[in-house]
């Protein structure tokens, strides 16, 4: 029986018989592909039920004025039916152009972009620096590596608690700053310092992943390339610029994309560091969560609309990123 394993058999496409009739084509394609479809069926079913259906339902909610007071709910034995109504695109209009849209959406939007860019840049630079250091012959290299991976090994929700205690008023960081006569900012109250603290903590959490992936990339660069560069008289900087960086390109374009997506969606750090106390330091994800679940009455419709906008931003960004990579003759390596 013909199956679609063309990569396994090296079967050529292209030299086909004249195009058969529709029924025959259907039958043929069924015979040829049914294995593949049977194999992806479980995931298709799961995605349909757990992603597509909620997505459609969420999309519908964004066109309504649903909140926790008019949604269907059960109190004790009484069941109350949903009474929310269809209001079209009003939610989106309100979020993007409404009277207080700057305070509610755009300020968080700008902060989210700044947060993503700064965090990923810091992750990447520090991670690359440490990976380069760890890639040399150095005594105790394994030990350093084990210690430096620690922030990744311990679950984020645990370490962020540690940071919260350290950053608290009178916590160790402020005591130390006091001891050296530096001003002690109120990390968890003042907006600027909240943002500073959030970036600091997230950088601390995210560097090990970058470091380890980039170290893997560095180790896969062919050593003879460096020898050749040396023969051609390249100095260390030129070797770094023209051998190391190009050699890392495929790994780094992947980890940077992953880093951007993860940082943009980072929930745990900000949620645990501040809870509901810091409205100005919330990025869009945690802000959407706050609208839907952190306040009373819960504004389901707006929260879902934020979610849709976030997804749209990410999809647009990823498509551009891929196109940009393709233009530079690179494949995305996920």
């Amino acid at each position, binding site marked *: 029986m013909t199956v679609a*394993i063309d990569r*396994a*058999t090296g079967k050529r496409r292209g030299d086909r018989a004249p195009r058969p009739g529709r029924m025959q084509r259907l039958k043929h394609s069924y015979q040829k*592909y049914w*294995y*593949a*479809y049977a*194999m992806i069926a479980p*995931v298709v079913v799961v995605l349909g039920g*757990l992603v597509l259906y*909620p997505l459609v339902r*969420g999309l519908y*909610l964004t066109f309504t004025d649903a909140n926790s007071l008019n*949604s*269907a709910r059960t109190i004790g034995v009484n069941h109350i039916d949903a009474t929310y109504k269809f209001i079209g695109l009003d939610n989106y209009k309100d979020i993007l152009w409404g009277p207080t849209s700057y305070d509610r959406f755009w300020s968080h939007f700008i902060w989210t972009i700044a947060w993503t860019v700064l965090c990923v840049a810091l992750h990447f*630079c*520090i991670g690359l*620096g*440490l990976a*380069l*250091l760890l890639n040399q012959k*150095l005594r105790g290299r394994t030990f*350093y590596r*084990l210690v*430096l*991976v*620690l922030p990744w*090994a*311990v*679950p*984020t*929700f645990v*370490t962020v*608690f*540690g940071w919260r*205690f350290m950053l608290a008023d*009178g916590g*160790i960081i402020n005591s130390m700053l006091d001891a050296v006569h530096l001003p002690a900012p109120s990390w968890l109250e003042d907006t600027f310092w909240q943002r500073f603290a959030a970036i*600091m903590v997230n950088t601390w959490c995210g560097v090990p992943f970058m470091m*380890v*992936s980039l170290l893997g990339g560095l180790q896969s660069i062919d050593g003879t390339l460096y020898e050749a560069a040396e023969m051609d008289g390249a100095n*260390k900087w030129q070797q770094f610029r023209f051998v190391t960086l190009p050699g890392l390109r*495929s*790994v780094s374009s*992947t980890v940077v994309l992953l880093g951007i997506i993860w940082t943009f969606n980072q929930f*745990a750090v900000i*949620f645990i560091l501040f*809870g509901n106390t810091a409205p100005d330091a919330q990025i869009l*994800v945690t802000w959407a*969560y706050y609208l*839907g*679940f952190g306040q009373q009455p819960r504004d389901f419709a707006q929260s*879902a609309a*934020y*979610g849709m906008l*976030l*997804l749209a931003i990410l*999809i647009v960004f990823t498509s551009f990123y891929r196109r940009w990579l393709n233009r530079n003759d690179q*494949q995305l*390596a996920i």
Partner: protein
Amino acid sequence: MSTTTLQTPPAEQAPGYDESPRPARRRGERSLTGKLVSHGILIVASLAALFPIAWLVFLSLGPDKDDYLHPGRIWDTMTFDNYSFVLQHTNFFEWMKSSLIVSLGTTVIGVMVAATTGYAVSRMRFPGYKKFMWVLLVTQMFPIAVLIVPMYQILSDLQLIDSYFGLILVYCSTAVPYSAWLLKGYFDTIPFEIDEAGRVDGLTPFGTFFRLILPLAKPGLAVAAFYNFITAFGEVAFASTFMLDDSKYTFAVGLQTFVSEHDAQRNLAAATAVLIAIPVSLFFYLVQKNLVTGLTAGGTKG
């Protein structure tokens, strides 16, 4: 913080190196100053990585909830009382049970559902392949905000709020596509000749997969399983929202209950945090080598 110091370019660019009159130095060897600077930066970075966790351990030994204000006092009154209190008088073991049920459930379902798909997209090309891969990619970047509201309503309709199964279902929405991606990367590294040999010997594609490829793919399956476990274990948003009964909290939710707006039992929170962190990080170190290769193995083919 260390963040600024670390970006200094690697130490081998120490001035004077290029004009060095000693050409006898072999590749990969560094000058003494270069080595010292490397060690210095690495030590500072290691301290920065270690300190918050060490501090958490230290705080967990102090008996009073306000000891974090005067850490000096802890040296004299060091005790394991917090640990015994957490183990005896809180829901620690209940939380552990919930965490394990939910994480293991997600792990098993995620890998089992995704395995055949990973194989299919690694080996076969079928109409709709590109669209399917795109869907797999996009579902991985769903922000929690997209699904949390509709999921909440759907689970309420199904009476699955506050149930382990409901939470497992929610986690599967990300675990399944992610595992499929990871597994595709791993299957790509298994030579196609093996499939060919199986096919020549008369196995169906299912037979090839189950008898030949699956046994070879055990390391890949382990990596996917581990990723699912870690993600489900550390997830905060869904768990905080969907689990209402405090005996069903996972660790990520339970830990938050120590610190509320009115009262902060920081010493107990620190002790619980340490108790959670030790087994998880040990486990992490055991498998971390495979972890990294697993993530980047898929990296060579698009």
